């Protein structure tokens, strides 16, 4: 594919990137997510997306929660477009979510969207009542290699916990 065709294909795949009429939604909406095609599916490579401004509400008290989300994945055919991810994450702003639930919900939405080889979502939430919660979601597509990665990362998470800050 020549450069011009490649750029045209990329541009046709996503609608929100570059839009000057961006609509922000503040209630959970997974339909905001968009993908583009991975043109290197034969390669295994990591993509890390850091979202430092994640916020949602406590489902019981409606008090705001804040945290950093770290999304690591090995793409297959589809990759999540980052502006759509930003809008999707903003859509949690007025949604009531427990930390443990929301990390799993985001992980499942991204798995459904991209069908990646491997994906993990880690939430580093701000402390509430002196306790910070750091849930982690992981998924493998079932191939032996990615199952091994999932198992290794699951078994080795937080072996050396540290207090940071």
């Amino acid at each position, binding site marked *: 594919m020549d450069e011009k065709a490649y750029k045209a294909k990329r541009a046709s795949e996503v609608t929100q990137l570059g839009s000057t009429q961006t609509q*922000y939604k*503040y209630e959970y909406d997974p339909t905001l997510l968009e993908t583009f095609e991975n043109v290197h599916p034969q390669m295994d490579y990591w993509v890390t997306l850091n979202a430092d401004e994640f916020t949602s509400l406590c489902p019981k008290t409606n*008090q*705001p929660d804040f945290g*950093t989300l770290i999304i690591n994945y090995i793409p297959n055919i589809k990759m999540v477009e980052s502006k759509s991810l930003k809008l999707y994450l903003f859509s949690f702003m007025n949604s009531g979510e427990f930390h443990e639930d929301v990390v799993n919900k985001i992980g499942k939405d991204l798995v459904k969207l991209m069908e990646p080889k491997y994906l993990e979502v880690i939430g580093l939430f701000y402390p509430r009542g*002196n306790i910070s919660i750091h849930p982690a979601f992981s998924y493998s597509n079932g191939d032996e290699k990615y199952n091994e990665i999932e198992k290794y990362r699951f078994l080795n998470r937080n072996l050396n916990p540290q207090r940071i*800050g």
Partner: protein
Amino acid sequence: MQLQKVDIVKNTKLQYLSHELLFLAKSGQPYRGSIYVNFMSLGETFNLLDFKKYITSLRDKKLNAEDIAYEIFLTITKSIETQNLGIVVDLTARGGIQQRISYGNEFNVVHKENIFQVR
């Protein structure tokens, strides 16, 4: 919003900070940042629960980023008497540009991280 007064010792130096500021740009895009409030007491401060509720109330308020420090300054001065009140707001980058907005008396902010929060 009115913040409830709390009587404290006069001439106490106070600095409050929060990394949990969120309000909306005119476009609707959320702004995130930290706020720092600094003043010398004239015998009173505000109830911290009220202040938390006030900060939370900004989540659905649309403002120019440059006006956020004044908005907070005004709310405090409407609620309590202070000496040398200053507000600093540090916003996270948008389009690669970071903003620090201040209103009132100048002061040096004390940077403190949230315990256990990885940054």
